[in-house]
């Protein structure tokens, strides 16, 4: 039997859609476990990235942190915290927030720092205050990259929340981890399929957001990069 037949059989089994720990419940839980850290990370990283991009201070630090960030095995970090503190809110929330910050921070920084100096001069010359320059000129121009950063962060938290099931977090990863523990491939495949679908929905959401939010005059700009 192939992956899809296992996954399909499991997903279409009626019993898996009702009761505690059912598909709808874990899906909602997964959205929460991904959305909350993403929101917190964005609240920290977007203003910080705008500030660093605008002033140019701390840029080297940001770039280096972002490079080192890839080397950190998230599974190991989650497990280390679980061994010390047991399974608490902070065991999963803090690593997810901390690890979702670098991709957002770097992209926001890159976007704001990359704004054409001529455009910045023009904004200043028109008498805009620094606040107006940032809010009305630099952030809208940086928006395509800011969204790339948020998308990367979102993809990251969805995937890490799946792995965090290993230390006891709920969500779709539960089906995978519990299935593996009981050597049942059905829930493992079904859980994996749902995670993939969720990740693709997140991707679709961000592509929709970039259509809705990016100013019309900039839409061509991101294209040769994409």
């Amino acid at each position, binding site marked *: 039997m192939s992956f899809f037949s296992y996954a399909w059989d499991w997903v279409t089994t009626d019993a898996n859609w009702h009761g505690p720990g059912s598909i709808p419940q874990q899906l909602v839980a997964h959205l929460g476990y991904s959305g909350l850290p993403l929101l917190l990370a964005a609240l920290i990283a977007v203003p910080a990235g705008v500030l660093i991009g605008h002033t140019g201070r701390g840029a080297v630090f940001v770039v280096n942190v972002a490079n080192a960030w890839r080397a*950190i095995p998230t599974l190991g970090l989650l497990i280390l915290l679980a061994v010390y503190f047991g399974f608490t809110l902070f065991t999963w929330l803090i690593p997810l927030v901390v690890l979702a910050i670098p991709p957002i921070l*770097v992209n926001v920084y890159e976007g704001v720092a990359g704004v054409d100096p001529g455009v910045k001069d023009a904004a200043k010359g028109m008498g805009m205050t620094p606040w107006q320059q940032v809010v009305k000129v630099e952030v809208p121009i940086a928006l395509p990259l800011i969204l790339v950063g948020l998308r990367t962060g979102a993809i990251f938290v969805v995937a890490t929340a799946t792995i965090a099931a290993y230390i006891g977090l709920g969500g779709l990863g539960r089906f995978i981890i519990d299935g593996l523990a009981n050597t049942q491939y059905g829930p493992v495949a079904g859980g994996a399929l749902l995670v993939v679908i969720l990740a693709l929905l997140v991707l679709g959401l961000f592509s929709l957001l970039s259509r809705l939010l990016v100013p019309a005059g900039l839409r061509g700009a991101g294209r040769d990069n994409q």
Partner: protein
Amino acid sequence: MMWSWIPSNWSEILSLTRANAFLGIVSPLIGLAISLPLGVVAARWRWFYPPTLVVVNVIYAIPSLALFIVLIPAFGLTDTPVVIGLTVFSLCVILPNVVAGLRGVPASVKQAATAMGYGPLRRLLTVELPLATPVIIAGLRVGVVSSISLASVGQIIGVSSLGYLFIDGLQRSFPTEIYVGLFCVIVLALICDLILVGIRRALTPWASGRNRAVRPRPRWVLSAQPAAPGAGARP
């Protein structure tokens, strides 16, 4: 931290590090081998690239654990699902850099090569690829570092890697083992990264010293275009 655990388990740590290094290095190298011809095609025939990039973006969004699981029925519970998964993810970060590197070769340089009598293949191999090397290696670095770190996730489906130290450490509530695992993964990744920097310097001697200052700002740093489309670490 129980330091005495390290020497008494030295051979196991070493063999797990070797397994992790194999998964984390071979996969991006295969990814590079696939990316080079694909990138050449995408740089030459522009219509080929946008749809390829959409596919790359979509694949890159798939969580690694899910992708490994998807590949299990076809390849069994061996190294293969992990190697293929990591290869695909590496491809996603390397390919955009190959295209960006090749497209970044100045038209005047290509014209000069043609004027000197270089055919398309010779021009590609002796002019364009060498000039694109720094950008390609930048992508390879991202691929290698994240593959080494991601290989540990393969342990969840039972593929041997340094992830074993995490999972065993959790089951025994033994932090030393987890610290050793974290340390080995990070050091292995940093060593490979440094080796790649050394290779880049050796391959592009003209890019050293004074000229490096005038190189454009590296936009590939992290998921920033024109390089990797959404290149973050893949948990």
